[in-house]
C-alpha cells in the first residue's frame, strides 16, 4: 500500500460518516412522519438502542479532546469527570422514571412542556425554553469545533478544518432533518460502539510509550508530582472546587433539555432506569482518554521533542506518533462519532424547543401538530447553519457560555424536584427562582468568579431555592386538580 497516510485515515473517517448518515436516514424514512415521531420517536426506543444512543450523546467531543487536554494542563482534577460519570447516574436513576411516566401520561415532548403543565403557565414554558436554548448553543458549537480539530489532525492535514466541519455537519443535518430522534438514536447506537472501541485503542499509546500504566504514573510522579493530586498542576482545583463541581454536575446533568427528552423517548420506564443504572460501565471509556492525557504530559515535548498545537490535541497527536494511519483513522472516526452524535441530538433538541415552546405554545398557538413538526425540521437546518456560522467566524464568542452551561440548566432543578414532591410550589416561585438563579450564575462566573472556590452553579442554585420557596409560599398554587394529577403520577 503506497497511499499517503492522510488518504487512508480520511477514507476510514468519511466512510464511517457515510454509513452513519445512511443509517440515520433509513431509520427515519421507515416511519410515518409526525411531531411525536420526530421529537421522541413515538416513545418507542428500547433498552439496547437507548443505552448506546444516550451514551453516545453524553460523551462528546469534550470527552475525546477535553478530558486529555485538561489532564495535560491541570492533572488529577480531571478525575471529577469520571466521578460525575458515577454520581450523575444516581440522579438520573431517580429522576428519569418521572420524566418517562409524566411524559407518557400527559404527552410531553420537551422539558418546558412539564413546566407548562405543572405550573399552568405558558410563560414559564417560554422562559425554560429560552434558557435551555441559550445554554445548549455553546455545546453545539463545541462539537463543531471538535470535529474540525479531529478530522484535520487525523487526516495528517489532507483536509483542512472548514471543509471537514461543513461536510460532517451537512451530513448530520440531513439525517436529523429526515430521521428525527429515531434517526439519531440508530446512528448514535453505532457511534456509541465505535467511540468505546476507539478509546481503548488509544490507550495503546500508554503501552507503546511506557510499557504499562504503572511506569507511566511513576514517570509523572518523578517529572510533575503536582499532576497526580488535587489541587492540580496549577493549584486552582482544591476540595471546595472538586466538591461543588461534582455536586453541580450531579444535580444539573439530567436538567439538560435533550436528556429529559431521552427519558420521554424510552419505550418503558425500566428501559431508561436500566440505562442510567449501567451507564457508568460505558463511562469507563473516559479512563483511557485521561491516561493518554497523562502520557502526553511526558511525551510532549519530553520524548518526542514536539510541541502540541494545543492541549486538546493530546489524544490524536499521541496516536499519530505511535500508530499507523489505519489506527489513526479508527480513532479519528471514534472522535468524529463522539462529536456528531452529541451535535445531532443537541440540534434536534434546540429546534424542538423552539418549534414546540416558542411557536406552538408561544407566538402561534393555532399551529397544528404537523405544522409544528415541519417547523421543527426547518429549524434544525437553521440552527445548524447558525452554529456553523458561529463556529467558523466567532469561535471564541460562545466559549465563555460553555463555562456556565451546567450552572444555567441546574436552575431547572427546583422546578422539577419541588414540582414532583411539594404541593405548595407555584409558577411565580419557579419563575423568580430561575431568573434570580441565572443572574447569580452570571455574576459569580464573570464578575466575581467562583467565590470561595465554590462553583458558580451552586451559588445560583442556592439563591434559586432561597427565592423559589418564599415566593411560592406567598403566591397562589396551581389548581388542586393539577397538583393531584402530577403528584400521584
Amino acid at each position, binding site marked *: 500500500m503506497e497511499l499517503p497516510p492522510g488518504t487512508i485515515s480520511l477514507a476510514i473517517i468519511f466512510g464511517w460518516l457515510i454509513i452513519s448518515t445512511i443509517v440515520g436516514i433509513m431509520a427515519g424514512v421507515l416511519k410515518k412522519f409526525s411531531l411525536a415521531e420526530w421529537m421522541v420517536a413515538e416513545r418507542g426506543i428500547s433498552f439496547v438502542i437507548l443505552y448506546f444512543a444516550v451514551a453516545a450523546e453524553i460523551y462528546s467531543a469534550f470527552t475525546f479532546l477535553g478530558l486529555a487536554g485538561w489532564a495535560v494542563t491541570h492533572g488529577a482534577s480531571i478525575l471529577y469527570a*469520571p466521578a460525575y460519570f*458515577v454520581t450523575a447516574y*444516581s440522579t438520573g*436513576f431517580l429522576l428519569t422514571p418521572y420524566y418517562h411516566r409524566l411524559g407518557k401520561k400527559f404527552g410531553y415532548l420537551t422539558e418546558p412542556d412539564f413546566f407548562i403543565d405543572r405550573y399552568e403557565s405558558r410563560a414559564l414554558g417560554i422562559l425554560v425554553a429560552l434558557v435551555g436554548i441559550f445554554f445548549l448553543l455553546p455545546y453545539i458549537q463545541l462539537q463543531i469545533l471538535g470535529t474540525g480539530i479531529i478530522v484535520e489532525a487525523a487526516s495528517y492535514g489532507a483536509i483542512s478544518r472548514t471543509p471537514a466541519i461543513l461536510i460532517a455537519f451537512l451530513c448530520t443535518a440531513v439525517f436529523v432533518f429526515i430521521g428525527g430522534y429515531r434517526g439519531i438514536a440508530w446512528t448514535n447506537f453505532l457511534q456509541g460502539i465505535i467511540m468505546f472501541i476507539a478509546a481503548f485503542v488509544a490507550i495503546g499509546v500508554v503501552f507503546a510509550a511506557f510499557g504499562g*500504566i504503572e511506569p507511566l504514573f511513576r514517570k509523572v510522579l518523578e517529572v510533575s508530582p503536582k499532576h497526580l493530586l488535587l489541587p492540580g498542576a496549577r493549584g486552582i482545583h482544591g476540595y471546595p472546587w472538586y466538591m461543588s463541581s461534582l455536586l453541580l454536575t450531579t444535580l444539573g446533568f439530567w436538567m439538560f433539555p435533550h436528556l429529559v427528552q431521552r427519558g420521554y423517548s424510552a419505550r418503558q420506564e425500566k428501559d431508561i432506569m436500566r440505562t442510567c443504572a449501567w451507564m457508568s*460501565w460505558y463511562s469507563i471509556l473516559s479512563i483511557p482518554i485521561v491516561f493518554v492525557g497523562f502520557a502526553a504530559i511526558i511525551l510532549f515535548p519530553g520524548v518526542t521533542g514536539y510541541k502540541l498545537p494545543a492541549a486538546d490535541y493530546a489524544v490524536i497527536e499521541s496516536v499519530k506518533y505511535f500508530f499507523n494511519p489505519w489506527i489513526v483513522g479508527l480513532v479519528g472516526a471514534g472522535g468524529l462519532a463522539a462529536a456528531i452524535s452529541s451535535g445531532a441530538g443537541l440540534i434536534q433538541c434546540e429546534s424542538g424547543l423552539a418549534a414546540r415552546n416558542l411557536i406552538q405554545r408561544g407566538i402561534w398557538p393555532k399551529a397544528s401538530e404537523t405544522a409544528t413538526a415541519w417547523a421543527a425540521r426547518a429549524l434544525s437546518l437553521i440552527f445548524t447553519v447558525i452554529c456553523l456560522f458561529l463556529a467558523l467566524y466567532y469561535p471564541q464568542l460562545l466559549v465563555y457560555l460553555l463555562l456556565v452551561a451546567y450552572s444555567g440548566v441546574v436552575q431547572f432543578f427546583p422546578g422539577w424536584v419541588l414540582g414532583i414532591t411539594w404541593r405548595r410550589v407555584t409558577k411565580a416561585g419557579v419563575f423568580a427562582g430561575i431568573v434570580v438563579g441565572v443572574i447569580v450564575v452570571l455574576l459569580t462566573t464573570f464578575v466575581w468568579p467562583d467565590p470561595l472556590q465554590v462553583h458558580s452553579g451552586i451559588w445560583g442554585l442556592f439563591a434559586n431555592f432561597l427565592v423559589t420557596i418564599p415566593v411560592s409560599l406567598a403566591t397562589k398554587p396551581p389548581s388542586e386538580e393539577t397538583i393531584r394529577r402530577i403528584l400521584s403520577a
Partner: protein
Amino acid sequence: MEKAKYREKEALIIAAIPPIVLILGAPFVNRVEPWVLGMPFFFFWHVAWLIIGPLFLTAAYIVRTRGG
C-alpha cells in the same frame, strides 16, 4: 400503594450512596499511596467507582421494581 412508596424510599437511599461517598470522600482519598493496579490511589478510587457504582444502582433497581 403505601408499600410501593416505602420501596421507593429504600431505592432512593441506596442510589444516594455513591454521590455522597464520592463528594464527601475527596479529602480522604487525595493521595498517591497506596498504589493499586499500577495507579496512584486517587486514580484507582475513581476507576473503582465506575465499576461498583452500577452495582448500587442495580440493587436500587431490584428494590424498586421487585420490592425488597
